[in-house]
């Protein structure tokens, strides 16, 4: 979107989520997703490994993978979706790919990702404050 109109940019920026912490592929995150069923809304927590971040302006998405009862489960959310209530960064991972699709073919210890110590430099605006809520 190199030649995005300033009008469209202002509309898209108004949907930007400032309260989402920085996370990258390889990081373990916990997504608090809003689920509405039967007219009721509740929060479902989905914890797993971020295997993809699609950086595309307002259309950005991320994919979280976890292995649940031996079955691989992947969920995709738009980064700016109101259905994402909260994202927690649990740990960083050391990876050499932007898209970790190769994990789908691996299981057990081979599917493990080595942890990376330390925080992101822009950690200061990670925690949602009272005013953001």
């Amino acid at each position, binding site marked *: 979107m190199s030649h995005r109109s300033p009008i469209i940019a202002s509309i898209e920026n108004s949907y930007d989520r400032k309260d989402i912490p920085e996370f990258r592929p390889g990081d373990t995150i916990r997504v608090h997703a809003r689920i509405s069923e039967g007219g009721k809304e509740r929060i479902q927590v989905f914890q797993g490994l971020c295997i993809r971040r699609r950086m595309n302006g*307002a*259309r950005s998405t991320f994919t979280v993978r976890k292995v649940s009862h031996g079955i691989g489960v992947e969920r995709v959310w738009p980064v700016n979706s109101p259905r994402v209530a909260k994202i927690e960064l649990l740990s960083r991972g050391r990876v050499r790919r932007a898209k970790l699709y190769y994990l789908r073919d691996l299981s057990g210890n081979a599917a493990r990702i080595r942890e990376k110590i330390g925080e992101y430099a822009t950690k200061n605006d990670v925690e949602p404050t009272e005013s953001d809520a």
Partner: protein
Amino acid sequence: MNLQLGLIAKKIGMTQIFLEDGTRVPVTVLAAGGNAVTAHRTAERDGYIAVQLAFGEKKEHRATKAELGHFKAAGVTPRYRVREFRVPAAVLAQHPVGAEVPVSIFNEGEFVDVTGTSKGKGFQGVMKRHNMAGEKRTHGQHEFFRHGGSIGCRKTPGRVHLGKRMSGHMGAETVTQQNLKVAKVLADQGLILVRGAIPGANNGYVLIRHAVKAAIRAGKNKA
């Protein structure tokens, strides 16, 4: 006849917005702020009732003298597009000459028709232009893959029927997309967000009107 008041607008481009429940809505952004009434057409003088709108600020030195006089008489600055909308007499009375028609005549959730000039495609064959199937690519077929097949008979009628669909110029024609939902109206910025795609390229001028089918159903399309 379509008697719905509309606005002249500029197609800015497409994006997406989120509803509160998280649904993503594809929208086209239309800038329609600054529609000024430049003239009235009345039944007594002109034989029909219409309101003339002008849109798109234009520098004074780019306007012809005739245009300058017309805009001066209405008391508005020169604009790029001038267009008449046939309306009932009651609507005409609400919009005096020189006044601005705000984008707030459209409300969120209403249906609109958008008219624009579609993108020109140049000279195209029958497969792209009329969705014909072409011919088979195998079984020894050669040299005729994207043709339209036979275009008629022999002695009777001895000519090609009028209107037979063939290749030719495609696009760059006036297209109206009916019954698009208004996703959002940003009145302070003069923007209307319409759900879905509309004809034409970005930065093209389009007309946005209340949906005529919805108006007929509600009995609101009478003079």
